[in-house]
């Protein structure tokens, strides 16, 4: 599904935060990437989600090398990957009610017609009640907003889900609920998962395989 080969990436020239890292995720497999804060694991997750162009190295999606990142990536590739970030507040447009937040990827890809059906299907799957869907981000809690962000990541039915510290800001019960929602989706669709985090207990419980950052380079 996804293969990262000797990826080097960073934000400033001559100061890469990721050096020569390789990692692969098989179709349907769930891989946990474990590392301390500041080690560069989020940068690697962004590379895997086509959100950050690496300085060197190869990224293979379904065996084909990726040549374009961000908006230059072909739509079929971009939409094959769903991403959930750590900070729901920073990854949600504060003007959008949760329904529109969840529906945005459908509208952006010209599939607005599917919105009512898809939102009605996803909201209960991530545990959002109808009264919450009309609210804007400032009117819901962090946990509720992260549920909406997960629904947004699933709305295009991605074949790979990248969860970067999805539950780090959440209480134990909401964290368990979100992980269960991801696993239900994977069981229904056979999607693969790359879960990035620092909580060994969580990742080992959640994923088929957990790799430590130090073992990748």
């Amino acid at each position, binding site marked *: 599904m996804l293969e990262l080969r000797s990826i080097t990436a960073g934000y400033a020239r001559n100061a890469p935060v990721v050096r020569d890292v390789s990692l692969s995720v098989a179709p349907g497999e769930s891989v946990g990437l474990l590392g*301390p*804060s*500041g080690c560069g694991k989020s940068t690697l997750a962004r590379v895997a989600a086509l959100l950050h162009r690496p300085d060197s190295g190869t990224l293979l999606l379904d065996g084909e090398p990726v040549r374009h990142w961000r908006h230059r990536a072909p739509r079929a590739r971009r939409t094959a990957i769903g991403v959930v970030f*750590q900070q729901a507040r920073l990854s949600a447009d504060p003007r959008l009610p949760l329904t529109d937040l969840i529906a945005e990827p459908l509208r952006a890809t010209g599939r607005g017609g599917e919105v009512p059906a898809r939102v009605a299907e996803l909201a209960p799957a991530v*545990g959002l*009640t109808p009264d919450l869907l009309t609210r804007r981000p400032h009117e819901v*809690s*962090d*946990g*509720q907003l992260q549920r909406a962000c997960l629904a947004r990541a699933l709305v295009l039915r991605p074949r790979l889900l990248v969860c970067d510290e999805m539950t*780090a*800001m*959440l*209480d*134990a*019960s*909401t*964290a*368990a*609920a979100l*992980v*269960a929602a991801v696993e239900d989706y994977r069981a229904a669709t056979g999607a693969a998962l790359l879960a990035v985090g*620092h*909580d*060994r*207990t*969580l990742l*080992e*419980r*959640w994923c088929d395989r957990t790799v430590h950052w130090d073992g990748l380079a």
Partner: protein
Amino acid sequence: MDPMAPVLSVRGLSVRFLLPRGRRVAAVTDARFDVAPGECLALIGESGCGKSVLASALLGLLPGNAQTAGSALLGDLDLLTADERTLARTVRGRLIGLVPQSPAAHLTPVRTVRSQLEETVATLTATRGRAALRAAAEAAAERAAFPADHLDRHPHQLSGGLAQRAATALALVGDAPLLLADEPTTGLDRDLVDRTVDELRRHVDDPRDGRRRALLMITHDLAAAERIADRVAVMYAGRIVELADATVFFGPAGPRHPYSRGLLRALPDRAFTAIPGMPPELGDLPAGCAFAARCDRATDICAGPPPPGTLACHHPHVPEDVRA
């Protein structure tokens, strides 16, 4: 003063927010707890349950549309009725030291740690003169284990752990008898969480300066609470539903309130199953137990108000040894 008398004594504390169109949000309802010197009380609960509102109420930092009831006695002073002048001049920093949620945002980004420490020392203590301030700031940094060679750095040049220590150093300058830590470990990784709470614990019963402080730590991180707390208060929908000894709460007997048990069951090293349903709206709470809708033990009497005391439940779990 009695050395074991509580530093902070909260009775019947309620906070209501008045919103447009007559809506009222019950953010905190009838909170009652004490924190003694040398003791750490962990206030745990999910996001949006009212924990941080309670902390703001204690510091007099609630917005203008909030109404409070009850009392929060810090010595002889009622924090809820104290005027802004008293709060600003004698309470914040001097009687209550605040360890903030995100230290990186709490520190002034354009000034070095040393300059912020010196300013705080000059404001809160009688220390005067450049050399004396410099020495006092260095001593304050050392108390929080902040390395002296990082004092001339700006906040963005610090790692999360060092920023946390800098913020803790600032909280300790005024030598306050009560430390209030609001989610001090959010977003830190596990090693850093352990280190941060261990350091906080050290200030509760500090052998080096012989001071016994009280610590009220607000958190949703159960592992951090288990590591540091003497007692645990569980908050749900604005109400403290269970107040228990930490060794019992995290031990084999476990907590007694169904919500507390559900929270522990959700941990990845336990059952890893979420509590079904979602927490209720604080603007639209039921008259009875707010957890009843999600609770597998709920019966008709749960529609009535929960019993007062340290366990707000009509059907609490009974420990095995009591039943036998």
